[in-house]
């Protein structure tokens, strides 16, 4: 395998990116010119991808690097996997764009849609030809943001909500991916796709951390449960061509990322001491894949809108891919079938899923309905659509002769081989899950087919036309591809899969085995029968008991996990803000008031004492004649009288003193009763209500306030707008921090 520097990958990405300008300029001159330019740009990109594939098929790996771009350089590296999928991406994009011409003819904001669609093409194809993880990340983010505009195209409430979930979840995923890039850069010094597991462990970083962040990063895009919640919202609300692209291609970027990281970065040879890690990673992915495929299929069966069922179907099929990836990683060098199954299913699913979504779009275009309960009996008016749908349904179900069959057989072989080699009982059960899910897949796709085209028409379909010639052409191309891969699966495997697998360190025996997959073995040919048997059973159950199945609103990952987490965060934040802005200043004020109360009693007492006047004392008046004529008895009488008056005065004084003392005692008692007890006072300060009063009302006031705050019904004293008031309080904060820092520095050294 030789490397050659070629500008072809750069052209592949730049062509659509700059083509956006051409589209926008052409739009000024009319819709027709714009549509032609879009078609031309998309076709040119497809042509470049084909040429690139031709070069790569001969054994070279095309590389290109733009050094000096953002300091790390932007790298392209097109090996076999990248080349094949570039062709797939551009082909599907071309078909969807041709389809879109008629579909979007009556939509608003067509130029915006087409322009962003073309830009997304450039970014998406860039993900697949990126040479290192950093470049991949760049294109990944560009793709996310550009596709956002496609998702919210309708701009109604549902679309905007779906767009929000999509955007925030994707941004979170992108940041998780950035974490992986940081770690790789730190460990490797670069972010290329080279084995790094040893270095990661050598630096003391837990490999599971890397895997967790990788699952978060690529898992959101891949729609693995429980990161899938954006998918059933976003894919249905986007216009059909965009849904086709989202489901067929964009979610593959997630799988592609897993492929690269698991098989090229985090893999080690079989005998390596760290091989146990790789086995654990693989096993984890098998489980994730199994859960995703099963739950996705169940949700697909239980839903009633065509696009939503197809969206859950995408989730389920991604589960297949991850399931296969896991098997491949688990087996190490014997994992060729797992890799082959995953890769092949990525290709096949891209084709038949876009086929299905475009068909759904055609039905919507002609009937205006997507709800399966309102559709029915269309077979007379849209026979061609019915025929094409049958072909696509046969693909996804895995009927021999159609492309889905090929990849399903390979995946089945992979899990069987895993069980055969490792003999873990769980693997057998997982294989059974795989088979049952195949049945469920047949069930939900048959449900769509039957409910759309058969049965009594629920509405008047007399005006409905069948597919237009251009749409028939598009679907014809799809049929050709599906049949080509389906009728000659071994050839497809040899051409598309084996060259990719042979670059990875798989055992020669397995690679040879890949050249002789028992596609037409009797055991394998029976598997679609199993699927349809299960499907039949499920559909009958659904028909009989479907009315009674009501999925409770709370039974969704979104409600159980995301919404609770969100509510929890909100409650914590509200409570913290309540503490900081209302509770603490309130308690400070209450403390001041309480201290003020004590002060007031003292003041009152002092005031009382001050105001008390001694009783009036009138000295008796004696003139000189009275003095001369006074007798002893008289004097004694006067002394007695004055003594009595004195006693009277003393009595009065004592009683007044006693009054005062009594008053002080009274006040003291009052004070003690109200606020004397230390605990009471503190309670008052802390809670803001005297303890006795509060106990009457029952329960801690703080607890009640906590509940109010969490529920959002507490009086909103926090005004987030302007709080220029708290100057004193804020200045105290500064002083406290200064003191704290000094303390830390000088004392706690």
């Amino acid at each position, binding site marked *: 395998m030789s490397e050659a520097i070629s500008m072809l990958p750069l052209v592949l990405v730049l062509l659509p990116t700059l083509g956006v300008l051409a589209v926008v300029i052409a739009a000024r001159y009319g819709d027709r010119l714009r549509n032609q330019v879009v078609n031309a740009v998309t076709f040119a990109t497809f042509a470049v991808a084909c040429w690139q594939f031709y070069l790569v098929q001969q054994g070279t790996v095309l590389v290109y690097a733009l050094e000096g771009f953002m300091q790390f350089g932007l790298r392209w590296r097109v090996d076999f996997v990248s080349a094949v999928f570039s062709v797939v991406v551009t082909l599907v994009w071309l078909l969807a764009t041709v389809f879109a011409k008629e579909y979007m003819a009556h939509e608003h904001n067509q130029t915006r849609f087409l322009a962003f669609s073309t830009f997304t093409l450039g970014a998406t194809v860039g993900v697949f030809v990126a040479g290192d993880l950093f470049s991949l990340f760049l294109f990944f983010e560009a793709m996310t943001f550009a596709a956002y505009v496609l998702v919210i195209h309708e701009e109604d409430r549902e679309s905007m909500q779906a767009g929000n979930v999509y955007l925030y979840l994707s*941004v979170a995923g992108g*940041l998780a991916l950035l974490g992986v890039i*940081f770690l790789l850069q730190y460990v490797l010094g670069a972010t290329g796709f080279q084995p790094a597991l040893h270095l990661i462990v050598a630096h003391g970083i837990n490999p599971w951390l890397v895997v967790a962040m990788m699952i978060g990063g690529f898992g959101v895009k891949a729609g693995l449960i429980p990161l899938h919640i954006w998918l059933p919202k976003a894919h249905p609300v986007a216009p059909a061509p965009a849904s086709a692209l989202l489901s067929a291609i964009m979610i593959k970027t997630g799988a592609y990322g897993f492929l690269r990281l698991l098989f090229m970065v985090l893999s080690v040879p079989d005998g390596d001491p760290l091989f146990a890690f790789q086995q654990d990673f693989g096993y984890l992915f098998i489980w994730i894949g199994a859960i995703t495929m099963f739950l996705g299929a169940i949700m697909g069966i239980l839903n009633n809108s065509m696009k939503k069922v197809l969206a859950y179907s995408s989730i389920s099929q991604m589960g297949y891919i991850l399931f296969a990836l896991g098997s491949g990683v688990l087996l190490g060098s014997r994992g060729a079938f797992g890799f082959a199954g995953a890769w092949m299913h990525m290709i096949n699913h891209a084709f038949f899923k876009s086929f299905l979504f475009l068909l759904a779009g055609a039905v919507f275009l002609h009937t205006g309905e997507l709800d399966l309960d309102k559709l029915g009996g269309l077979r007379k008016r849209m026979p061609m659509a019915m025929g094409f749908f049958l072909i696509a349904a046969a693909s996804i179900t895995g009927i021999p002769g159609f492309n889905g069959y090929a990849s399903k057989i390979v995946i089945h072989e992979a899990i069987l081989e895993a069980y055969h080699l490792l003999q873990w009982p769980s693997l057998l059960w997982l294989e059974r899950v795989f088979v049952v899910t195949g049945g469920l897949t047949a069930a939900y796709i048959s449900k769509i087919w039957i409910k759309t085209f058969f049965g009594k028409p629920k509405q008047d379909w007399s005006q409905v036309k069948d597919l237009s010639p251009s749409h028939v052409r598009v679907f014809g191309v799809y049929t050709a591809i599906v049949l080509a891969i389906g009728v000659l699966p071994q050839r497809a495997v040899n051409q598309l899969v084996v060259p990719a697998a042979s670059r990875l360190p798989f055992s020669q025996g397995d690679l040879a085995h890949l050249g002789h997959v028992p596609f037409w073995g009797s055991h394998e040919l029976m598997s679609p029968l199993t699927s349809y048997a299960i499907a039949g059973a499920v559909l009958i159950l659904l028909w009989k008991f479907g009315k009674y199945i009501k999925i409770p609103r709370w039974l969704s990952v979104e409600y159980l996990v995301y919404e609770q987490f969100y509510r929890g965060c909100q409650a914590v934040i509200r409570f913290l803000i309540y503490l900081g802005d209302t509770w603490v200043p309130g308690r400070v004020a209450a403390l001041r008031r309480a201290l003020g109360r004590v002060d007031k009693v003292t003041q009152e007492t002092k005031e009382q004492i001050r105001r008390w006047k001694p009783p009036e004392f009138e000295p008796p008046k004696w003139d000189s004649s009275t003095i001369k004529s006074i007798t002893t008895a008289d004097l004694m009488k006067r002394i007695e009288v004055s003594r009595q008056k004195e006693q009277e005065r003393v009595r009065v004084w004592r009683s007044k003193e006693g009054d005062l003392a009594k008053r002080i005692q009274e006040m003291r008692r009052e004070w003690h009763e109200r606020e004397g007890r230390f605990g009471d006072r503190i309670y008052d300060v802390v809670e803001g209500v005297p303890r006795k009063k509060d106990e009457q009302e029952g329960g801690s006031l703080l607890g009640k306030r906590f509940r109010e705050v969490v529920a959002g019904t507490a009086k909103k004293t926090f005004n987030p707008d302007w709080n220029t008031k708290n100057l004193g309080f*804020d200045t105290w904060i500064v*002083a406290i921090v*200064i003191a704290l*820092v000094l303390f830390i*520095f000088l004392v706690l050294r």
Partner: protein
Amino acid sequence: MITAHIMPLTILLPLVGVYLILLVGSKYRALARKVALLVTGATFVMVCYITYLVSSHGKLFYYLGGWAPPLGIELQADPITAFLLLTFAGVGFSVILFAYDILPGEINPKVITRYYALYLVLLASLLGIVLSNDFFNIYVFLEISSIAAAALVAINGDKLAMEASIKYLIMSTLGSGTVLMGIAGLYMVTGYLNLDFIAGALPVAYGHYPLTVLMTLAMLTVGIAVKAALFPLHVWLPDAHGSAPTSSSAILSGLVVKVYIAVLLKLLYRVFPLDFITTLPLQGSLLVMATLGIFIGSILAIRQKDIKKMLAYSTVAQIGYVFLGIGLFSEKAMVGAIMHVFNHAVMKSMLFLSAGLLIKYSGRRNIADLAGLGRVYPLPMIAFSVGALSMVGIPPLSGFISKWYLGLGALEANQLVFLFVLLLSSLLNGFYYLPIVIAGFFQTETVEIQKKEIPIGAQVSLVILIAATFFFGLFSNVSVDFLTPTVQGFFDVLGGGG
């Protein structure tokens, strides 16, 4: 002649501009803004020349009046200083360009002359802080910048701005006072005011007076933290930046808050030896406060309804990033911190200026009311979107680069947890920026808006800032290669690696 004295002239030119404006502008109001534009443009050119000299000749020294330190006043320029000067002069020029036609609509026309005068005073003081190499000079310019900034907040005389300005002034003075005590302490134990001489005398001084030296460091750090709005000392920032006129907010959030960080950098990396600082609990305190600031700033920003206040809280969070970079004490983290100073100056100014335009032309300040404005006024909304995406850290915009270096710095310093802080806070940033971008472009207008022509000055300044964001993202190697040798020098000389 000019080139020999380029450094003091860079500080002097805006001051001369102040006098010119006050002389001329009182009579001929229209001339004030022209003078301001010319002066800031010339200052930028001079700063570019200083950068060129630094990159070709290395560190520049200048002794005022020919008097050598330690008695004379010294001005120094090294690559980091030059980079910061470019930030201040460049953004300062862009904001004046923006305000050229917008200002008469925002503030009382009678005070416009004063506004430009204060602006140039502020610019001169910022340049002075960065260029000065002795503490006394730094302190003088520090005080000038505080007063000028507070005046710029209250210039329009409305109640809210006055209150906010008083709060700003008081807390800023608290900070300055603390810084002054720190400087006094340093002078007392070392006998010098010049940074290099203090650095030389410090080990001896520490031997004699360990507690004083520690107290000094503490006081200086806290004082600077108050002025730089590090959590929990940021309380003055949201009101001040939220209620000020647009150009004031832009320069306050973008430049004034950062210049104190420049002082802190000088302090921590040139005055105090690195091996000494790492023995102190300084690193822990800075990192904790920075992390809290990042999260609480972001969370409070999410809760805001007024767009300017939201941007102010966002500044609190971004200052947290810069302190995170400083506190990690590793090469890449410091590069990231300095890059973030520059990137944030550009991004935040762009955000404030475009928000100001949106407020002006729609008459509404609430985020919920800005729906659909992107269709009527695409340029401010695009500028806002570019700024928002850059803040979240989307490549290839410049905000990604500073976060990249901060993240690598966290790994270099063996503190993996701060990598997660960085990633999680980027997500939080998205929560409050992206809704505005989405609402601006993709939602329908709630009220009928008429399209008015945006003045050419405002458009050009926004385009310049957008271009800067893209340029320093795509070609970040220009700035990083410029800064790295000096940063490495800090870590090599002092203790053999960070």
